[in-house]
């Protein structure tokens, strides 16, 4: 069944190499969109296939490659154990599907202009960085993997260079640079303490380090990874930066980037610093705060993309909960939850992109009647939404159940608090998802608060304002003045500018115009801020030309939904796999002995 060991091990560097080479080729082929698309897609398909082989190959024991055959402490070690291969396969599958979605978006906008496309190469570099982070068996190589994927993400987030994206990008770049510097400082501390950066070797030598020093290093690393994974006190950057990006970019970020942080936390907790109760308690409290505060934030939002960004933060809490329990059951459930969450969160952001296309906005105060307009879209939203909320029998339910079971097994007061917190968060998530469903999908178009100046700040409470205090004429007038003032000098200005910028700085997503990703909102805002139209849908229907869902984008989204459902179908075997991965992780010996067995140099085992 399993291919020969040499085959597996020679395949291991390819998930990093292929996308990098593909990125170079895609850049060269920038002038030939069709060829470029073919190259990028085939590279990603190949990577997915290789990842699948690696999952099978690493099932019995971790596979180790020392790049360039330098013995382990000198050369770069790549390690594919069950955790990293599961993460790799899930993330690369989602990457591929979101990429198809992006291509669909590019062709759907079919613009005749064909400017230089930097989207494809950057996207492939991102994939290479993610793969490198997962496969790295060395702390510094993990740092390099992070930097590669972050550099790519900076470019993707600010694609098009519009005002809102530049603003969001600034926050994102500065926060991530700081987190990388904290990580680098952590690396310096590790090196000073144990004199190596090889993960397996650190884990052996760290036991001799005094407990206080260990805790310091541990917390520095956790802070760095906590920022990247968006764990509560360090999560404020995420809902501010993600929603402004193009739909496929947000989808792939939501699916992958925070999960690389979670992956690093899993490695830190299980391999480097097992059984550190202080840090585990801190993580448990952080997990509780992340869950509840994220979910409350999601409820308070009106914009679907912002709702989803907050649920993303909130559900990171579940994974941290499982990891912080440090029992095999907890870690296994956490890994299962990561797999589930990568898929479902990326799906929902793709759906949000479709909603934006169809409805012209992602604000629930401007959307209505989508279920009637497109039953297909309604299904595509509904399935992942209830999956995220944890309705049985979907994979979200299985993951949450596993976590709750692990929490109950643990039995400490803090673990019980988290069990209660995770049930509460699940309900709150369901409420947030249902709110979007009722407002955007079920509400008839006539019920929209129409014909009211709607500012572009996303301050959508305003639409309801006259109903609230309409009995007080002065207040009402004040309100109106305020609105008109704003519409006159604030929103129109940036929006029209933004639109103008698009034309002057066209950048590609796929083969179409990059701006299109959000141009739905951009263009609508320009036309609407003059006309004060309430709803995109009703307007378009009035003109008798309903917007069709682009076929390729819908198909890619449907593919993601199908992957989500497939996770439910294979939940049993998958859960066995993640449990075994967790057993290996908590035992630690398979990983460490695999790396040391590879090292021919006896200095390693010193």
């Amino acid at each position: 069944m399993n291919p020969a060991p040499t085959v597996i091990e020679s395949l291991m560097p390819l998930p990093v190499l292929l996308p990098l080479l593909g990125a170079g080729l895609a850049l060269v082929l920038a002038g030939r969109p069709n060829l470029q698309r073919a190259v990028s897609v085939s590279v990603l398909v190949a990577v997915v296939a290789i990842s699948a082989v690696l999952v099978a190959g690493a099932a019995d024991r971790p596979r180790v490659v020392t790049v360039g055959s330098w013995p382990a402490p000198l050369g770069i070690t790549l390690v594919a154990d069950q955790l990293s291969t599961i993460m790799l396969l899930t993330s690369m599958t989602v990457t591929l599907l979101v990429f198809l979605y992006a291509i669909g978006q590019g062709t759907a906008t079919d613009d005749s202009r064909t400017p230089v496309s930097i989207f494809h190469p950057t996207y492939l570099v991102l994939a290479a960085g993610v793969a490198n982070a997962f496969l790295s068996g060395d702390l510094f190589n993990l740092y390099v993997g992070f930097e590669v994927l972050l550099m790519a993400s900076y470019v993707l987030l600010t694609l098009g260079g519009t005002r809102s994206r530049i603003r969001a990008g600034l926050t994102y770049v500065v926060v991530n640079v700081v987190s990388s510097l904290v990580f680098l400082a952590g690396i310096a501390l590790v090196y000073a303490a144990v004199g190596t950066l090889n993960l397996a070797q650190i884990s052996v030598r760290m036991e001799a380090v005094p407990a206080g020093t260990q805790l310091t290093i541990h917390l520095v690393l956790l802070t760095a990874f906590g920022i990247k994974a968006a764990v509560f006190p360090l999560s404020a950057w995420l809902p501010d930066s993600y929603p402004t990006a193009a739909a496929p970019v947000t989808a792939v970020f939501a699916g992958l980037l925070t999960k690389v942080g979670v992956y690093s936390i899993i490695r830190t907790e299980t391999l480097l610093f097992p059984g550190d109760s202080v840090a585990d308690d801190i993580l448990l409290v952080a997990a509780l705060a992340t869950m509840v505060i994220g979910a409350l934030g999601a409820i308070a939002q009106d914009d679907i993309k912002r709702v989803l960004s907050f649920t993303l933060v909130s559900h990171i809490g579940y994974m941290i909960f499982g990891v912080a329990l440090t029992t095999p059951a907890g870690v296994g459930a956490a890994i299962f939850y990561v797999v589930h969450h990568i898929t479902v969160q990326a799906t929902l952001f793709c759906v949000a992109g479709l909603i934006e296309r169809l409805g012209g906005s992602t604000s629930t105060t401007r959307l209505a009647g989508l279920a009637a307009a497109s039953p297909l879209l309604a299904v595509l939203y509904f399935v992942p939404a209830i999956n995220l909320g944890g309705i049985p029998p979907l994979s979200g339910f299985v993951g949450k159940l596993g976590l709750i079971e692990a929490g109950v097994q643990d039995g400490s007061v803090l673990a019980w608090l988290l069990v209660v917190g995770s049930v509460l968060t699940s309900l709150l998530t369901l409420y947030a998802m249902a709110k979007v469903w009722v407002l955007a999908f079920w509400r008839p178009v006539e019920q929209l608060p129409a014909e009211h100046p709607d500012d572009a700040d996303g301050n959508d409470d305003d639409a309801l304002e006259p109903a609230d205090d309409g009995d007080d004429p002065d207040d009402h007038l004040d309100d109106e003045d305020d609105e008109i003032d704003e519409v006159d000098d604030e929103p129109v200005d940036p929006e029209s500018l933004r639109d103008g910028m698009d034309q002057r700085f066209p950048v590609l997503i796929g083969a179409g115009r990059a701006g299109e990703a959000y141009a739905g909102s951009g263009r609508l805002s320009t036309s609407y801020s003059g006309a004060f139209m309430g709803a995109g849908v009703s307007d378009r229907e009035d003109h008798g030309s309903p917007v069709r869902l682009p076929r390729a984008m819908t198909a890619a989204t449907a593919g993601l939904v199908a992957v989500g459902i497939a996770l439910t179908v294979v939940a049993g075997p998958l859960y066995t796999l993640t449990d075994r991965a967790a057993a290996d992780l908590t035992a630690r010996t398979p990983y460490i002995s695999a790396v040391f067995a590879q090292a021919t140099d006896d200095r390693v085992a010193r």
Partner: protein
Amino acid sequence: MSMSLVMLVLIALLYSAGVYLLLDRSLTRVLLGVLVLGNATNLLVISSGGPFGTAPFVGRSPEAGMSDALVQALVLTAIVITLGVAAFLLSIIHRTWTLDREDDLGVDAEDRSVRRRLERDEQIDEDEFDTTGCESTSDTDDERAERAAVATTGGST
């Protein structure tokens, strides 16, 4: 590991200066802060290799007296990465300048809307209990005053 006091003091100074600059509203200063923080971290990595010795070339000097070559390789990588990030940040700052003719980090739209919602709620409360409170109304009427108000609350929280 032993570490020279001069390096320790220098690293501490650079870290504090970097954090101070990073918290500024001016984007150029934020960039400088990133650079200073990067250098502080690089020095930390260099000192993590132990006491300094001779240049690590095999054959030129006895192996026992050499500096650690690995940390130098690490720092080289880190410097290149910081350079790339700095170039990207510079280009973003330039873009902000062409868009807004401003070097400051603007007020966040969401912050402002939350602030406005808050003020409106307060206004409703005041209308119910007290008819004299109109300070917040004048704030909302004037965009600049509002910006200032948000800025002060943003700074104080």
